[in-house]
């Protein structure tokens, strides 16, 4: 007998929970449990870990109903607790927070499987996210994706060495020729291995397939002229 996928929704606003519930009903038949506090959410997840565990968690980031006795004060804390306990559950953040600072913190530190925005998402997007998560993949909504990309660009621009590599790369037929050309701010030479590592990071940051694609993307994004 095929068991239903169990989903937990944590949000301090009943209305939001209702909204998500509506959307999920459109997507498929799920066994959904809801809660309005992080503490309860974590308790539920832990309680059912061995007996009918939840496969998915939809959680907000800020919870307005925390009191003095609240243990987990907000979505970040909840996710951190789950990660620390190495519980196997896919996490989707569904929130209104779009400030890069918060997004960056959540994405880079907590690595959620999905990041959705309450204001923008609808049943279709939620369904897409559920699919992706169940396939062990990631889904960040477009706006969040854009933000992360922009952030990468800014970081690359601030990184003198990265800018040097991007500028010099088209002038040399081989990567090994870059050794001795690229220098740190104090004038010391950077080794080939470091250059290659940096190139790898840059490709990932800018979603580039290869070095040529990287240069094109960098030019497109205005990192280099």
């Amino acid at each position, binding site marked *: 007998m095929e068991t239903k996928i169990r989903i937990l929704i944590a949000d301090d606003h009943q209305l939001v929970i209702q909204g998500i519930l509506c959307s999920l009903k459109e997507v498929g038949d799920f066994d959904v449990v809801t809660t309005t506090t992080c503490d309860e959410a974590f308790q539920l997840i832990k309680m059912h870990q061995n007996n009918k565990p939840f496969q998915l968690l939809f959680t907000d980031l*800020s919870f*307005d109903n925390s009191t003095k006795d609240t243990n987990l004060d907000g979505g*970040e804390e909840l996710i951190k607790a789950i990660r620390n306990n190495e519980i196997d559950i896919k996490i989707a953040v569904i929130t209104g927070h779009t400030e890069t600072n918060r997004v*960056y913190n959540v994405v880079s530190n907590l690595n959620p499987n999905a990041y959705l925005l309450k204001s923008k998402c609808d049943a279709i997007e939620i369904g897409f996210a559920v699919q992706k998560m169940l396939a062990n993949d990631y889904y960040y909504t477009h706006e969040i994706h854009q933000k992360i990309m922009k952030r990468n660009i800014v970081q690359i621009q601030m990184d003198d060495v990265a800018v040097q590599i991007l500028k010099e790369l088209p002038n040399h037929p081989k990567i090994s020729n870059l050794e001795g050309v690229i220098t740190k701010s104090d004038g010391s030479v950077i080794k080939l291995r470091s250059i290659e590592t940096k190139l790898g990071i840059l490709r990932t940051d800018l979603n580039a397939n290869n070095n040529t694609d990287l240069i094109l993307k960098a030019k497109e994004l205005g990192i280099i002229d």
Partner: protein
Amino acid sequence: MSKHQLFKRLKRLFFTKTNTLFFLLFISISVFSQNKDLDISIDSIAFYVKNAKGAHKFSYLKRAVLLSEELKIDSLLKQTSIEYAKQSYFTKDTLGLTFSTNKLLKHFQLKKDSFSLAKAYHLEALNHKLKNNLDSTFYYFHKSKNISIVLKDSVEIGRRLLSMAIIQVKELDFLGCEITTIEGLKYIEPNKNYRTLISLYQTLGNALGHLNKPQEARSYYLKAKKIAKFNTVKHRREKNYLNLLSNIGMTYKDEGNFKKAVSLFKEGLNSDSLEIKHPEQYQALLGNVSSIYFIQGKIEKAIEGYKIVLKSRIKTKNRYTQSISHSFLTEAYLKNKEYALAKKHANKGLELAKKTRNNQRVLENLKFLSQLTKGETAKKYLEEYIKLSDSLFTRERNLKNQFAKVRYETEKKNKENVGLKQQNQRNELQIKAEKQYKIIGWLVAGVGFLIIVFGVNIASNRRKKLLFEAKLLQVEVREKERQEIAKSLHDEVAGDIRMLHLKLAKTNQIKEADSLNIIKENVRNLSHQLSSESFDKVVFKDQIINLVSDFFEPKFKIKVNEIDKVNWQEINNAIKRTLFLSLRETIQNAKKHAVAKNIILSFSETKKAVLLEVSDNGKGFNIGEKKNGIGLKNMKERIEEINGIFSIESQLEKGTTIKIEIPKNGN
């Protein structure tokens, strides 16, 4: 040639008066010297001193003294005064001595030259000696000696002691003399001043002789004889030698060894042209030989010798020794029962002895006369004899007492001086200790003061720091409050609006829904602006990157310089927050109001502060004209709250630059 050198040469001249050559050289050199007046004066002094001989002796020397005084050359004045005094003494001129004494005392008062004082006392003593005031003489010699002791001038000490000893012999205080001479030897023996040493030995020998210790006396005479050869002046050397022969002979005579005594006397008498060269020694030797003849009962021979001696003494006008000769003759004639002659000599001797105050002889003669006369006259002489003898005895005892007293008092004074010295030293030590205490006190006070200043400084620094920390705390508290507001704005207001929006959307009131959406977005933005959470979770550099990313667009480029130059981990969170908020406000202003295309952020750090400079290429604004917006005002307040400095520069159409400097620890 310097003045000083001149004096030196002149001084030397006094000691080597015979060195005419040198004198001429001196004259010839000084002719060329520039200070002519002075030189001429000094020349004349030298001339006076040099030519002070014969009839002009005194007038010249006195002129030298007066000229020296006039020129106010103290060293010269001292020299000339002493020279003048010496000559005055030899000619028994007491007025000259007094004059010199006064000059020396004046010199002492002016220059505090103790040598002058010692010399002045010496002259005073000589003055009294000329006046026959023996006790005063003794007293001044004694004073002069004591000053010389202080000056450690051994030769002067020895000479004064010798003079004192001679006086003591004269006053029959032989024991005192012995003591004095032995003390003198203490000073003179080590420095080989032979002239004084010979005299001291002789005087000591004389004293011992009178004390009936011929053997001891002889040993000193022999010592003197041994060193007599070192006397460089031939005349004096011979005199010494003859005197010693006479004296040594006398010791043998006292021991009854007449043969040896006579042989010695005869050895002396046999020397070449004795009577002319050394009449006194001749007289003494001949007298001595005669006295031995007398003892041996060769009266005629003795009388013959005494007569020759007396003649010779009359020739040399020495009345003192003449009286002695008369005494001996009286004795001899008495023995020979030639009473008339004896009486004649006794009377003559008495007269001379009285004149020369030779009390011993007076007594002797009185005794002879009382023997030579009869009845009332004899009684009268005897009475006179007894009276004089008594008075002499008392006087002698008084004198001895006086000498002893002088010595005793000085010793007492010395002891007192030693005591005073010790007390002085103690006082000095105490003063030193007090000084040290004072210094220590000052040091302690200084250190205390420094500590207080230091303490106050620390206290004020701590107070400042506490204040700063309180401010930082305030900032954090306010930030929390802001976040609370942001949260409720976001969650409650935005949620409610969303609800309304959904309802409106459902009832197809699209226009209202859209405007509500705009309101919702505004609220959300406001909420985001108010909140700046996750500071603890994200490192500051990433926060800045995130902030920049929020505003970054291809048409609004933000360049960040040297963000790694600051060690952000060591910067207080409140400072970072203030920087973050200021930065956000500035970027917002640049984007929204200035419509800038480029913006450059530069970070830097000093030992005490963090610095941030933000410049854009936007429209700029007139700082004086436009009242600072609420954003700028808030930013300024925020920075100044934590003792930071905020400055802004703007040029129309060129851009705006703001500079922020925040101290790391509130100073």
